[in-house]
């Protein structure tokens, strides 16, 4: 309905219709519509209207009032009357005689008109400059404009406009005033018109209760207001005014008309398929005017008008919603009077209305082009409407038997009973789709699927995923009903995944149960896929605990049980393993402490398994995997038959002897080939805050393997010792394997330690031992080759063994020990050379904080060197203790009879740690104490560890032990706190230990360090001596002369340097060296005369003699000066040979010699007692 504001125009007769008149009219029209008109809206705000459509109409064409009782829009009548006269300003004569009268007539016609304004437009020519002077004469008489103003302006407002018309029509400025006045006039007139119309409406409303009041007239008034607003472009105000329509309708009118009467609804053929939002499909206006409109039509009309306005104001998204709620609400009313319609008439009406409304919306959408979000809302609104249409099809389908009467088809099914139609069949159903569906089942399905797909498309565009899911469910249900089982199965089994993310378990389990039911119908083999669907179903079932079971079944528990039983069968039958992590049907809670088995190796772990299913669940076994340090893994397991609903307490067993703290890595429930796994939860990106740990206590009687450095250490070949203690087990078979990074173990060269016990063994890639009795220990020495020298070796020990009691059970013991290949002792050698003898001092010290016990040291000469004789110094009997601060020295003399010694000697130290020795003693004593008391040796490990721990706490016993061998156990709680049998054994052992003494000769097991020692080389050994020859008084002093020496007396002496090349490598005895000697300065004691230093040529076994004179500077006893001998490298040697200087060792043979020097000419005064008087 395109409405525009009318402006009537009139003109003097002689001007009307002339060429100029047409020109003026065209000029005005060409400048329309009016721009930026400010209109006062009922919200009392001034709303600027950008473009106000205005039509110029001749005054004569305007209809007279009171033609119709029902007022139309206020715009139906001109809001402004314009009178255009063409008169020069000075043509007063013409004005007075002709124009004024005509103008008066017009004025009297126009002014009484209600709600309109008037305006006089005087057109003048541009003034002619040539005539200006002559015209001035009449100026006094005034102008036509002023006359006009004086004659017609009755109030403050100036309603006369003068316009200087120029023929080129280009200057917009001259029109400005006219258009300003026009806008002002239109605005005022519109406000007045609206005000008076509103007043009319109010008055009419107040008269409701009066007889003869007509709703249709009242409505006409109300609608005219809206139409008026709409006409001027105030669509929003128009819509607002329509808001009250329905309310006033329902309060006043509807109550008067009973549903079912012809006045309420008067169906005509085609009503059920008419486009809902069209206001032209019926002559609504006339029907209203004639007061013949039915409520049905009236409500549709109101809706259509509102929707149209909504689309206009840009709220297109509200249209589908409005339509939907209207259809929903009004159809309810229609169903109340269903009997007055043919069957399916109302459904057909809703169906067509929804579809046509969507079409209309789509058309508006194209026209108004809403933005993204708005468009999505419109799309989803449209989809909702189509959904409504779809549910009409469902209603029809169910009634005709095309669809089953069950969800999801019954979701849209209103709860009502259809009333038999009482109308004759002359109102046919005109909707093609509905007619087709009624006629044939296939057509119904086609239409249903087409409409559903269309709805799906719109939902998708509107971003309504969840609605779309619902429709997919409906499609799948349809497939199921029509027997398209595989298609239905595929849809059902994929749909549940969409409900899972929000844990919408009720719908998820519904979909899954549909999938399972469909699967059962397809008679497909129950395979892995089926198992997955079932597991998911159980998951969702458990999550909502059966509370929101949407499946219409009588006994949910039986329903679930049926599946659980089938699951077990399928799981047993399938070949491939199916793993399912974190299924919520069960939860496994292990205790945090394991219990030792006691009578055999291994431990028990208590576990609570909760079954959340409402029925028993058959399983095979329950397993808990523990994870320790160093990749150690242990598996606790137990066979289980059924898990009852609720708590199940199980005890799991792990045969491997292990102890310590373990992390629970995962738990498993196995049913056939189905594995329900419960791994320790790791949230990616988050550190694990809560660890579930299990503590396994140590088992002293379990099989144990200990690794330590070999007792016998040969620096050429590294070995390690291991000791297998069988504990309580009498072992049938045992296989042992060691691994360490970059270390190769040579099992083939392994040697059984004879002293520990004899067993049969074979060695290949591993060590295989057979038949070890219980409480026995077997020791081996295994050589190894190290790739890289390391500080500590990390050795992993893997032992597989079976016992005689349980020959079929193979236990695996996994141990990790670290071994330090470095020795606890270090040996340093110091050598002294004599002419034919070498004295070596071996200093043995402890490298750690441990005390060492050294039993014996030996230096063994190689057999090849027969000429070499080794003489140990007088050996102290017994064992020596070395502390970190106090090393021990062992001295040996080597007599080399001839020539240089090429082969190295062997130094052997037999030692052990004090700790080991004491532990061994305690072990022995406890063993004998137990056997004497006739008690079980099972107590031994505990007693020994208690005693050792007690000794560790207090070192006071150590010094006493070193001396005597007595071990005094300090009084500690560990000892005093024991009770019963243990206390008895402890007491006994304590006494035995106190009585213990060191044996005469070392006993027990000793470690042996074999150290190859090279005989050191020395090219030249110089033996120096100073021989005193004579004094002035005693020219010939014998070697052992007692002749006195006096200070200041020159003593002739002889310096002898004997050189020997025996300790050198060079066997060439003829070789000569230039040596340099130097006599030490002893400036306080000796004055030396003669060659104090000098070079000489040294030959093998040759003596060089230098005469010197010594003079003692003071009296006393002091040594002779020392002589330093060095190799003197000649320039030739340095330049030619590049030879290192020969090593020279000087032995001062006189270094221990001291001489007594007497004072020369010394005078001594002695006081001799002459006796006293008393003596005489």
């Amino acid at each position, binding site marked *: 309905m395109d409405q525009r504001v009318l402006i009537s125009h009139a003109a003097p007769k002689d001007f009307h219709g002339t060429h100029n008149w047409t020109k003026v009219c065209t000029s005005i029209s060409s400048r329309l519509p009016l721009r930026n008109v400010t209109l006062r809206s009922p919200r009392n705000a001034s709303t600027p209207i950008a473009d106000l459509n205005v039509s110029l109409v001749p005054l004569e064409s305007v209809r007279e009032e009171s033609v119709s009782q029902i007022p139309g829009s206020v715009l139906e009548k001109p809001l402004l009357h314009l009178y255009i006269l063409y008169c020069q300003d000075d043509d007063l004569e013409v004005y007075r005689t002709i124009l004024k009268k005509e103008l008066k007539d017009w004025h009297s016609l126009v002014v009484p008109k209600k709600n309109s304004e008037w305006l006089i437009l005087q057109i003048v020519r541009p003034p002619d400059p040539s005539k200006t002077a002559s015209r001035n004469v009449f100026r006094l008489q005034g102008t036509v404009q002023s006359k006009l103003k004086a004659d017609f302006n009755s109030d403050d407002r100036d309603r006369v406009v003068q316009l200087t018309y120029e023929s080129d029509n280009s200057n917009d400025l001259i029109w400005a005033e006219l258009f300003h006045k026009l806008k002002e006039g239109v605005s005022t007139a519109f406000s007045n018109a609206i005000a008076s119309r509103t007043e009319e409406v109010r008055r009419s409303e107040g008269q409701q209760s009066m007889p003869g009041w007509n709703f249709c007239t009242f409505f006409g008034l109300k609608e005219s207001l809206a139409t008026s607003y709409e006409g001027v472009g105030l669509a929003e105000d128009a819509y607002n005014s329509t808001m009250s329509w*329905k*309310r006033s309708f*329902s309060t006043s009118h509807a109550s008067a008309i009973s549903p079912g009467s012809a006045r309420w609804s008067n169906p005509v053929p085609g009503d059920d398929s008419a486009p809902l939002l069209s206001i032209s499909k019926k002559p609504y206006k006339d029907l209203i005017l004639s007061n013949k409109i039915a409520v049905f039509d009236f409500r549709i009309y109101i809706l259509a008008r509102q929707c149209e306005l909504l689309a206009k104001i840009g709220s297109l998204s509200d249209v589908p*919603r409005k339509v*939907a*709620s209207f259809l*929903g*609400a*009004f*159809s*309810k*009313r229609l169903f109340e009077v269903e009997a007055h319609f043919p069957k399916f008439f109302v459904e057909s009406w809703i169906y067509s209305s929804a579809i046509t409304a969507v079409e209309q919306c789509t058309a508006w959408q194209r026209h108004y082009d809403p933005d993204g*979000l708005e468009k*999505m*809302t419109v799309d*989803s609104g449209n989809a*909702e409407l189509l959904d*409504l249409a779809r*549910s009409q099809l469902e*209603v029809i389908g169910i009634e005709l038997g095309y669809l089953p009467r069950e*969800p*999801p088809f*019954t*979701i*849209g*099914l*209103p*709860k009502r009973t259809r009333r038999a139609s009482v109308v004759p069949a002359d109102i046919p159903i005109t909707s093609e789709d509905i007619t087709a569906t009624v006629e044939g089942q296939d057509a119904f399905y086609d239409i249903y699927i087409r409409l559903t797909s269309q709805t799906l498309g719109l939902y998708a565009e*509107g*971003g*309504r*995923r*969840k*609605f779309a*899911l*619902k429709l997919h469910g409906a499609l799948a249900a349809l497939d199921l009903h029509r027997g398209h089982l595989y298609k239905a199965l595929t849809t059902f089994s994929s749909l549940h995944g969409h*409900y899972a993310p*929000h*844990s*919408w*378990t*009720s*719908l998820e389990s*519904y979909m899954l149960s549909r999938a399972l039911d469909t699967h059962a119908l397809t008679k497909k083999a129950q395979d892995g896929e089926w198992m997955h669907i079932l597991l998911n179903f159980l998951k969702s079932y458990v*999550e909502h605990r059966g*509370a*929101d079971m*949407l499946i*219409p079944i009588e006994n949910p528990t039986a329903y679930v049980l049926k599946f659980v039983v089938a699951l077990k069968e399928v799981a047993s039958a399938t070949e491939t393993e199916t793993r399912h992590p974190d299924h*919520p049907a069960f*939860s496994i809670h292990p205790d945090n402490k394991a219990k030792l088995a006691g009578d055999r190796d291994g431990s028990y772990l208590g576990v609570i398994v*909760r079954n*959340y299913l409402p029925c028993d669940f058959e399983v095979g076994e329950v397993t808990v995997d523990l994870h320790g340090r160093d990749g150690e893994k242990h598996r606790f397991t137990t066979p289980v038959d059924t898990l009852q609903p609720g708590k199940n307490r199980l005890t799991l067993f792990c045969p491997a002897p292990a102890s310590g703290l373990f992390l629970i890595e995962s738990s498993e429930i196995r049913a056939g080939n189905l594995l329900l796994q419960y791994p320790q939860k790791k949230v990616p990106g988050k550190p694990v805050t809560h660890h579930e740990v299990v503590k396994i206590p140590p088992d002293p009687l379990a099989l144990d393997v200990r690794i330590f450095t070999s007792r016998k250490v040969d620096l050429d070949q590294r070995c390690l010792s291991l000791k297998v203690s069988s504990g309580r087990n009498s072992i049938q078979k045992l296989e042992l394997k060691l691994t360490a990074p970059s270390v190769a173990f040579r099992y083939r060269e392994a040697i059984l330690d004879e002293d520990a016990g004899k067993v049969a063994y074979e060695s290949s890639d591993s060590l295989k031992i057979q038949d070890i009795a219980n409480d026995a220990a077997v020791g081996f020495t295994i050589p190894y080759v190290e790739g890289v020298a390391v500080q500590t070796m990390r050795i992993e020990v893997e032992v597989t063994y079976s016992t005689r009691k349980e020959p079929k059970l193979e236990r695996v013991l996994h141990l990790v020990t670290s071994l330090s290949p470095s020795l606890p002792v270090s040996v340093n050698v110091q050598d002294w050379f004599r002419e034919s003898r070498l004295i070596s001092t071996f200093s043995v010290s402890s490298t750690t904080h441990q005390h060492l016990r050294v039993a014996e040291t030996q230096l063994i000469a190689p057999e090849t060197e027969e000429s070499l004789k080794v003489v140990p110094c007088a050996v102290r009997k017994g064992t020596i203790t070395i502390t970190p601060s106090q090393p021990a020295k062992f001295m040996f003399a080597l007599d080399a009879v001839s020539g240089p010694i090429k082969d190295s000697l062997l130094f052997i130290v037999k030692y052990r740690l004090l700790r080991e020795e004491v532990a061994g003693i305690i072990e022995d004593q406890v063993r004998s104490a137990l056997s004497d008391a006739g008690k079980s040796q099972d107590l031994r490990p505990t007693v020994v560890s208690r005693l050792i721990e007690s000794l560790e706490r207090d070192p006071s016993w150590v010094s006493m032990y070193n001396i005597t061998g007595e071990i005094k156990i300090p009084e500690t709680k560990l000892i005093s706190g024991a009770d019963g049998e243990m206390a008895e054994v402890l007491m006994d052992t304590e006494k035995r230990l106190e009585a213990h003494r060191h044996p005469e000769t070392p006993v027990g097991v000793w470690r042996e360090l074999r150290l190859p020692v090279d005989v050191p080389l020395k090219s030249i050994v110089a033996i120096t001596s100073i021989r005193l020859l004579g004094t002035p008084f005693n020219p010939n002093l014998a070697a052992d002369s007692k002749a006195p020496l006096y200070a200041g007396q020159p003593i002739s002496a002889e310096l002898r340097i004997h050189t020997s090349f025996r300790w050198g490598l060079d066997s060439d005895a003829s070789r000569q060296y230039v040596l340099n000697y130097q006599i030490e300065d002893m400036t306080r004691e000796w004055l030396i005369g003669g060659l104090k230093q000098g070079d000489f040529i040294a030959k093998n076994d040759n003596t060089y003699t230098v005469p010197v004179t010594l003079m003692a500077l003071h009296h006393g006893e002091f040594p002779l000066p020392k002589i330093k001998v060095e190799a003197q490298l000649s320039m030739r040697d340095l330049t030619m040979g590049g030879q290192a200087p020969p090593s020279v060792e000087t032995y001062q043979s006189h270094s221990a010699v001291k001489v007594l020097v007497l004072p020369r000419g010394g005078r001594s005064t002695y006081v001799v007692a002459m006796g006293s008087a008393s003596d005489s």
Partner: protein
Amino acid sequence: MPSTLKLNAVAFISPQNHPILIRTFSKPDENAIKYHYIAHTSLDIIEERANLHGKFTDCYLGLLYSMEDVAVYGYVTPLKVKIVLALALSDSVVKDVEVIMLFKAMHMAYYNAISNPFLRLESSMDSEHRPVTAHPRWESKVEELPQTRRRDCPSIGVVNLGSQYTPSTTNPVFTDTLPYP
């Protein structure tokens, strides 16, 4: 004027869009799936509204959509718990005030339930995912609501509820979750 609202179902949905409680008041209960669907699909519309308006300035979302015989209304608490009501559709004008009153009563019932320190949260399963599970007392309260409303039709029982279950405002944790009085 007596209220003509008829409550068919109510759904409480957590801020993470997990269902907390879905209850139907229509007997027999075979149509439960319908209301599960309604609750689920309502989330789409609530999300749509949130996108459209950026942020909810008002708890009450008004009519979400209507189906054949059900009008679905939405409400989002300040802590983003969504409450969805399915009202039987009638041709009469539904006053928002009445629906809001009903929502506030629901919100209050929920609020009272969760402010109970002795409320047993589901222990064995994923308690995070299900802040309040079908707690018998609370459930019964929700069940009672429509009945209360039916008894004292004019005021739909909210006033009674409010005075009966006035929460202690000294509990600061929950103060902001209170529906506006």
